[in-house]
């Protein structure tokens, strides 16, 4: 248990540390839909390989379409309706982290996790959409001759490698979310909010206040 746990809990109970919003409802819905889709995709991909035989293809391609829709939604929202540079990894972040300075909205570790997971999910989504051409569904007929055989091999390699990376990243992501000192992030991803005291442990209030209008824009550019 974190040495700050009891103090933080007291602050919340006494109400002397106001709640601030970390994640908007729409972003939390996106996160949990993506999380469920990724877990179902990992299960339907890897359980048959380790011996749990079931009809995995329908579950896999339908969930894949859900993940694709979620990824497209997130790309549009992050690009045009959010401050994309909040999550951008900058040279300054490494200096801040090594010097023990607190971050703005996202810590360096969170940015690195997002970059790795985002890249892997993008690769697996693009290759997965291409691979849909090999599946017969009520919506389309399969066309296995869409690509050359050797090109299909490259698509499969990229899809499989990205899936293995997602497996590792998902394990570590869940692990970090369950650590007592990081529990406020998990609560914020469920309920949207954390206390100012909790936020101030890792985030500089002058760079991320929880109120977008109050945050200095230069910290997000």
């Amino acid at each position, binding site marked *: 248990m974190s040495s700050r746990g009891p103090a933080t809990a007291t602050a919340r109970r006494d109400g002397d540390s106001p709640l601030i919003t970390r994640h908007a409802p729409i972003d939390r819905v996106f996160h949990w839909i993506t999380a469920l889709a990724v877990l179902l995709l990992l299960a339907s991909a890897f359980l048959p390989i380790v011996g749990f035989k079931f009809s995995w293809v329908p579950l896999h391609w339908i969930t894949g379409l859900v993940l694709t829709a979620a990824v497209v939604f997130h790309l549009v929202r992050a690009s045009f309706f959010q401050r994309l540079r909040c999550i951008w990894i900058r040279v300054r972040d490494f200096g801040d982290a090594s010097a023990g300075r607190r971050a703005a909205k996202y810590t360096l570790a969170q940015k690195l996790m997002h970059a790795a997971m985002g890249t892997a999910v993008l690769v697996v989504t693009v290759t997965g959409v291409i691979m849909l051409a090999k599946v017969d569904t009520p919506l389309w007929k399969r066309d296995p001759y869409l690509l050359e*055989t050797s090109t299909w091999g490259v698509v499969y390699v990229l899809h499989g490698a990205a899936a293995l990376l997602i497996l590792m990243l998902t*394990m570590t992501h869940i692990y970090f979310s369950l650590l007592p000192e990081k529990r406020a992030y998990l609560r914020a991803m469920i309920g949207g909010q954390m206390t100012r005291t909790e936020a101030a442990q890792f985030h500089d209030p002058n760079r991320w206040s929880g109120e977008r209008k109050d945050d200095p824009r230069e910290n997000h550019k």
Partner: protein
Amino acid sequence: MEIFRITRNAWGQETLEGISWDLLPVAFGLGIAFIVGHLVWRALRRRRGSGKGGQSPSSL
């Protein structure tokens, strides 16, 4: 341990089938190793921090 799955077609040509599933336990093991490594590192940092009488936010 194979990195890729490669088969031969009817004409004896090698065809790339995808990544080898031998890598699945490797990926899972690397994930577990990272978690265990971080737990050990975290415990050592905490022990060292409590020995000095406190922790900084960045040490957590």
